[in-house]
C-alpha cells in the first residue's frame, strides 16, 4: 500500500515536472547566414521570455516539401516556419497561416518596409513577418570598370551593362564581364529571367491567363540574355545558381554580377572574398520602359494554423523581427551583418547608412512593385514569380528549357515555343482558362 502511494506520488510529480518547465517551440528554417546568427542569439529570447527554442534546419526544397506536408495535413510539427514571399499569399488564402494582426504597438508594424509588408499580406492583413528582405542589384568590380574606361551610373541601362560586360571580358585571364544565373529552377534562373523580362516589358500572362512567351518582349529578353552570356559569361553558366556565381565573384572572375542584394555583405567581407575592397553597387538595369529588372523577396517567419503554441510562437516572431533584434545583432557582429531589408528605421539609422550597400539595397527594394511588376497590366501578384500554386512547377519546366538554350542545346525560339506550349497546357489543366 505504502509502495503504491509512493509510486503514485512519484508519477504525479513526474507528470507535473514538464508542465512547470518552460515551453519549447519548434522552428523550421534554412541554413542562411542570418538564420545561423539568429540561432546563436536565441539565448537572449529564452532569457527574456522563458521559452525554449528547438531549431530544425533543412535544405530549402526539403523545407518547402516538409512545411507543405505539415501545414496541409495540420501535422503541428512546427510552431514557426521560415517561408518566402511566394508561399505567403497562397497559404494565407488557404487558411494555413495564423494572421499577425494583433502585434503590440511596441512592435511598430508600420516600420516594416511597405514593399515587404505588401508582399506578405493578403487583403491588408499581415501573415508573415519579414526576417530579412532582398531585391537584386548589380555588384561590379570597380577596378575592372575603370580598366575598361567606363563609369557605372547609379541606374544603368541593359545596353550599358552589355557593352561594359563585353569590354571587361578577358577570357585568357579567366575574367568574365557578367555572371548571371543559368541553373534551371523557378527560384534560380527563372527568378532572374522573369525580373529581367519585366524591364523589357514582357509578362507571364495576359489578363486572361494566356501565356505570353510568344511575345516580342520575351524574345528580346531571352535573345539579349543568351547573346550576352555567350559573349561575356563564364563557361558552363547553365549550371550556375546563386552560390556558384558567388564563388566566381569572390574569386575575382566576374566583372559584374546581378543578383540578390544580400550577397553584398558576402562579397565585401574580406574573410571570404578576394575582391572585398573593389566592389561597387548599382541598380538593376532597365530598357527605358520605366521598369527595372530587379526582384523582391523576403525570408519571413509565419505561424502554421495547426500549432498548439500560438502565443509563444508570436512572442518569438516579435523578438526576431523587432528593432531590438537588429540592435542586438549590431552590438555583437557589427552593422554590416544585421539582417537587411525589413525595417524602415534601419535605413534611417546613421550607423547603418555607413554600410556601403545600404542605400542601393533600399532603393532596389523600393523600386520593385509586386502588384504592378511589368509595363502591361497582369492578373497576378509577384515580381519574379506569379503567386499561384502552379507556378513553381511550370516555371521550373520553363527554366529547364531556357537553361538548355544557354547550354547551346536549342535556340531561343525553340525554348520559347516549348515554354509557351507547356505553360498553356498546364494552365488549362489547372482550370485557369
Amino acid at each position, binding site marked *: 500500500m505504502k509502495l503504491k502511494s509512493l509510486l503514485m506520488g512519484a508519477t504525479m510529480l513526474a507528470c507535473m515536472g514538464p508542465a512547470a518547465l518552460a515551453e519549447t517551440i519548434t522552428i523550421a528554417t534554412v541554413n542562411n547566414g542570418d538564420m545561423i546568427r539568429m*540561432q546563436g542569439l536565441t539565448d537572449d529570447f529564452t532569457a527574456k521570455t522563458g521559452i525554449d527554442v528547438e531549431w530544425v534546419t*533543412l535544405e530549402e526544397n526539403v523545407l518547402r516539401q516538409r512545411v507543405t506536408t505539415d501545414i496541409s495535413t495540420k501535422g503541428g510539427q512546427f510552431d514557426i516556419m521560415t517561408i518566402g514571399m511566394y508561399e505567403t499569399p497562397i497559404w494565407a488564402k488557404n487558411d494555413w497561416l495564423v494572421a499577425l494582426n494583433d502585434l503590440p504597438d511596441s512592435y511598430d508594424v508600420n516600420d516594416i518596409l511597405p514593399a515587404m509588408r505588401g508582399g506578405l499580406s493578403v487583403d491588408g492583413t499581415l501573415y508573415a513577418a519579414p526576417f530579412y528582405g532582398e531585391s537584386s542589384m548589380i555588384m561590379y568590380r570597380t577596378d575592372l570598370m575603370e580598366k575598361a574606361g567606363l563609369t557605372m551610373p547609379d541606374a544603368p541601362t541593359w545596353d550599358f551593362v552589355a557593352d561594359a560586360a563585353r569590354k571587361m571580358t578577358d577570357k585568357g585571364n579567366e575574367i568574365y564581364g557578367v555572371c548571371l544565373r543559368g541553373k534551371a529552377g523557378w527560384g534560380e534562373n527563372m527568378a532572374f529571367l522573369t525580373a529581367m523580362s519585366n524591364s523589357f516589358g514582357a509578362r507571364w500572362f495576359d489578363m486572361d491567363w494566356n501565356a505570353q512567351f510568344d511575345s516580342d518582349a520575351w524574345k528580346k529578353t531571352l535573345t539579349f540574355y543568351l547573346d550576352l552570356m555567350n559573349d561575356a559569361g563564364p563557361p558552363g553558366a547553365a549550371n550556375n545558381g546563386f552560390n556558384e556565381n*558567388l564563388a566566381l565573384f569572390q574569386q575575382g572572375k566576374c566583372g559584374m554580377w546581378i543578383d540578390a542584394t544580400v550577397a553584398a555583405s*558576402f562579397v565585401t567581407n574580406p574573410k571570404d572574398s578576394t575582391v572585398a575592397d573593389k566592389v561597387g553597387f548599382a541598380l538593376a538595369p532597365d530598357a527605358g520602359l520605366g521598369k527595372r529588372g530587379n526582384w523582391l523577396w523576403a525570408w519571413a517567419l509565419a505561424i502554421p494554423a495547426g500549432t498548439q503554441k500560438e502565443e509563444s510562437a508570436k512572442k518569438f516572431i516579435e523578438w526576431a523581427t523587432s528593432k531590438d533584434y537588429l540592435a542586438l545583432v549590431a552590438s555583437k557582429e557589427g552593422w554590416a551583418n544585421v539582417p537587411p531589408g525589413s525595417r524602415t528605421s534601419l535605413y534611417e539609422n546613421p550607423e547603418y547608412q555607413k554600410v556601403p550597400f545600404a542605400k542601393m539595397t533600399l532603393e532596389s527594394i523600393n523600386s520593385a512593385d509586386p502588384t504592378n511588376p511589368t509595363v502591361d497590366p497582369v492578373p497576378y501578384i509577384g515580381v519574379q514569380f506569379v503567386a499561384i500554386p502552379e507556378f513553381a512547377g511550370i516555371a521550373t519546366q520553363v527554366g529547364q528549357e531556357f537553361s538548355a538554350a544557354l547550354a547551346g542545346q536549342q535556340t531561343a525560339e525553340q525554348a520559347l515555343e516549348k515554354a509557351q506550349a507547356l505553360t498553356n497546357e498546364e494552365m488549362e489543366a489547372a482550370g485557369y482558362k
Partner: protein
Amino acid sequence: MARAVSTRKKTFYTIAAWAVGLIIFFPILWIFLTSFKTEAEAISDPPSFLFFDWTTENYGVVQERSNYVRFLWNSVILSLGSTVIGLIVAVPAAWAMAFVPGKRTKDVLMWMLSTKMLPAVGVLYPIVLIARYFGIYDSYLLLITVLMLINLPIIVWMLYTYFKEIPVDILEAARMDGATLRDEIIHVLTPMAIPGIASTLLLNVILAWNEAFWTLNLTTVNAAPLTAFIASYSSPEGLFYAKLSAASTMAIAPILILGWFSQKQLVRGLTFGAVK
C-alpha cells in the same frame, strides 16, 4: 591443371581495379579533404588538393551548432532496429518460400519486389496522415516501422536466395532424427545460414542508415538521424561547403568504418545471386 595467369595480365587487372576503386572513392575523399579547408579555400579555383592550411575549425563549428551525438544515436537505433525487426519477420517468410514453396511463391516474391517500384513520395501523404492519427509522428516507432517495411522485400529476397543454397536434404535428415520445426530452424538452418543472415543484416543497416527520403520527411527533432544532420548544413544563400563537408564526413564515418571491417560479408551481400 591450374590455369596460368601471366604476371602482366595480373598487373593490368590490379591497376585497373585500383583505378576504378579510386575513381569511385574520389568524391568521398574530396569531401574529407574539403572538410579541413577554410570556406574560401573550399571554393578556390583551381582547387587545392593536399597543400593547403589544414584546419579543424569546421568540425568545431559543426560540433558547437548541432548535437551530433543525438543524431548519431538516432541513426544507430533506426538502422539497427529496423533491420533486426525486419530479420525476425523475414527469416520465417524466407524459410517457407525456400523449403515449402507453394504454387504462387514466385509470384509473391515478385509482388513483394514490385512495392519497391512505387515512387516513395506517392505514399507520403497517407503515411503522414496515419502517423498523425496515431500521434507517432517523429518517433522511433514510426521510423523503425517504415524503414523496416521499405527494406523488407530486399531482406526476404536475400535470405530466400541464401536459404535456396542450403540442401534441403540436411533439413530432412534432421527431421528424420526427430527434430521439431523449431529445432530445425534454430539449430540446423540458422547456423548454416549465419553468413547469409550476417550479410543481409549489414547491407540493410547501410540501406537504413543512408535512407534520406522518409527520415527527412517523417522526423523533426526527436527521431531525426544523421541525414537530417547533413541536410541542415546545405545553404540556399551562402557558401558553407567546408562545413557541409565536415558534417558529411561525420555522418558517413561510422558506417564507413563498419563497412571496412565487414567487407567480406558485404561483397557477398551485394553480389548475391549475381553468379550462379
